[in-house]
């Protein structure tokens, strides 16, 4: 009898531990600060998510350590790096965490997603926390990106700019001119002619695709803006007549030629340019410059982005830091947010990660951004940058735009494809509007 009782107790314990371990799986990965709070009553635990960006991780880790040292005994910031993959894995994770109510206190997000996150209440407005001095110091492009309906929702971690990289050896062999200033930038047609001249079966003329997600709208939107073909109306509410305007269709056709004539690969390897398998690289960001040293055979050069119309336009906008709706103590979270995005931080992200700082003061007494090729990035950012469209349906726009451009690059008719895109985006916007009522 005793044996039996023991046995049943044992089986109960087993079943209970199984059930508990399963429940534990759920709460163990919960990044909310609640569970951590119990560990120590005096130290406030804060959590933050950031994308797994190889170039930026050392700098971010250093600033997290600095914060924890500065506020020792008061706050402790825990950071989790989440892979983004080659498309939208980070955003998928945020979506599901948002609906489950388990977002971290501090949520890093890619800038153009801000309107969408703000409109859906994933991040909270932080205008009241930000001092005039701090606001004054932000780069105009960053401030614009971080504002939705007159409220500031996030502070930029860093900025980003694409440059045009080329293989110096090949360019010297062919005697191509190198633009000296933005007005002198290559035209897309010129780039096409150069690509045609240098492309061989082994070496692609140019690498255009950086990834098949956000990278497409980030990398390609400058050409559309340069051709006076904004992707959406200024208030972000209309795509018809914009993304499928004649100028837009023309730009898409010009880009299409690179692929249909096999001057650019539709499936480039991540380091196609660095490996010497592409003579030019049209997208990317300044973070890659630091990584060029890993490729000793690469004889690289950089210049301004090409233009599709008569003036050069630069892309901009990068990761920014907000406070999530699930944060229990926004006052404390802001202390960490302020620290992680202050002038010293954003400067360090530039020094170590190679991304342009998001604050004006970070450029003062900072020789890096006056040196080649960073000076061109700075010039583009300060003088020619246009952020990606601001719309609450940005997530749909980004992925549909990527899909449409890939279709065009693999031979679809540009006009037809862009018409379909315009209809899709407008329908999505209408649905969004009606669901907000």
């Amino acid at each position, binding site marked *: 009898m005793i044996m039996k009782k023991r046995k*049943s107790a044992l*089986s*109960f314990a087993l*079943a209970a531990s*199984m*059930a508990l371990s*399963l429940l534990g799986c759920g709460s163990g990965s919960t990044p909310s600060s609640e569970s951590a709070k119990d560990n120590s009553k005096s130290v406030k635990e804060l959590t933050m998510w950031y994308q797994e960006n190889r170039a930026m991780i050392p700098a971010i880790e250093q600033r997290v350590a600095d914060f924890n040292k500065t506020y020792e005994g008061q706050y402790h910031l825990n950071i989790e790096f989440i892979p983004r993959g080659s*498309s*939208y894995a980070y*955003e*998928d994770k945020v*979506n*599901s965490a*948002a*609906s489950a109510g388990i977002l971290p206190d501090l949520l890093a997000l890619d800038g153009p997603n801000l309107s969408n996150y703000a409109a*859906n*209440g*994933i991040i909270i407005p932080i205008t009241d926390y930000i001092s005039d001095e701090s606001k004054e110091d932000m780069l105009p492009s960053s401030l614009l990106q971080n504002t939705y309906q007159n409220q500031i929702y996030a502070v930029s971690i860093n900025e980003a700019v694409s440059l045009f990289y080329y293989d110096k050896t090949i360019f010297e062999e062919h005697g191509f001119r190198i633009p000296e200033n933005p007005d002198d930038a290559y035209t897309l047609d010129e780039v096409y002619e150069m690509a045609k001249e240098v492309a061989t*079966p*082994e070496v*692609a003329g140019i690498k255009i695709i950086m990834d*098949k997600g956000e990278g497409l709208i980030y990398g390609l939107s400058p050409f559309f803006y340069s051709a006076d073909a904004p992707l959406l109306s200024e208030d972000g509410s209309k795509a018809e007549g914009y993304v499928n305007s004649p100028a837009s269709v023309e730009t898409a056709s010009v880009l299409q030629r690179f692929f249909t004539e*096999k001057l650019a*690969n*539709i*499936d480039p*390897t991540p380091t196609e340019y660095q490996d010497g*398998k592409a003579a030019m690289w049209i997208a990317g960001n300044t973070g890659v410059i630091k990584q060029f040293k890993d490729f000793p055979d690469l004889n690289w050069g950089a210049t301004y982005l090409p233009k599709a119309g008569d003036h050069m336009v630069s892309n901009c906008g990068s990761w920014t830091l907000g406070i999530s709706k699930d944060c229990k103590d926004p006052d404390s979270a802001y202390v960490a947010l302020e620290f992680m995005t202050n002038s010293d931080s954003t400067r360090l992200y530039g020094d170590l990660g190679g991304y342009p700082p998001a604050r004006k003061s970070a450029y003062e007494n900072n020789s890096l951004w006056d040196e080649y090729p960073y000076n061109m990035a700075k010039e583009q950012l300060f003088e020619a940058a246009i952020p990606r469209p601001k719309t609450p349906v940005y*997530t*749909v726009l980004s*992925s549909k735009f*990527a*899909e449409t451009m*890939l*279709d065009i690059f*693999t*031979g*679809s008719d540009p006009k037809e494809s862009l018409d379909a895109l315009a209809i899709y985006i407008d329908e*999505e916007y209408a*649905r969004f509007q*009606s*669901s907000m009522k």
Partner: protein
Amino acid sequence: MRRKQHYAWFFIFPGLILLLMFTVLAAILAFCFSFMDFNLLRPQDASFIGADNYIRLFKDTSFLKAMKNTFYFAVIVVPYQVGLAFGLALLVRENVKGIGIFRSAYFSPLVTSMSVIAILWTFIYNPNPTQGLLNAVFAKAGLPSCDFLRSADTAMNSIIFMSGWHGAGYQMMILLAGLQAIPEDLYEAASIDGAGAIKKFVYITVPGIKNVLVFVVMMTTISAMKLFTQPYIMTNGGPKESTMTLTYYLYRQGFQYRNMGYASAVSVIFFVVVVGISTGIKKIMKAR
């Protein structure tokens, strides 16, 4: 006896809870959500909209394309994969020396996860002959290069080819077990009666393995209907939505576009289709 029942409940309790939570409850919720305008990010604002999602679905060309693509995939991949598996099973059936190596070799693709396989095949299918293995072989043989995943005409067939290659080893193992369960005596008796190899195959092997075959066809069909990883990793559903499948469309609407209500409607249709197909297959196979 009662005590024994008591134990039985006790042991199935953890499994039952999981099943209820993640299958039954999830299915009921999906059914309810399919009648709602439900943004994943704003669950508090979800509202009842009747059959609007379903009406929209049947006008949605992307959904209809996804449905067509999914059926196309299943119709082609099932006979191809099962046929391949059956062929392999017949090949590795004999207990000759070293046959284990072949059995493991055919089974080995399955050991690696589909995500890894899909990425590898993206390299193999790369349209550039200097980067893609298959196109490099074509170039050496003097054949023109093929765009594989990057052309709407070939993308789905490329996925079918690699999916069958990946999955056939598993069905081979099941069919092999079925083949080995057929008593040797039957073949001996048939030989004495003068039956040739073909007759033995038609009158002994096929009837002997029928039940296993029904199972294999059904499982392959259901898993074919669930095609997701390959388009997700290899093509993002393109080009021109030629590899958009029901589950990928469901994921995209639900998690990327956050239209949970609409995605739930897709999932309900998907459920009905899969249940319909499996009962259909069962009936046809039984009738024979």
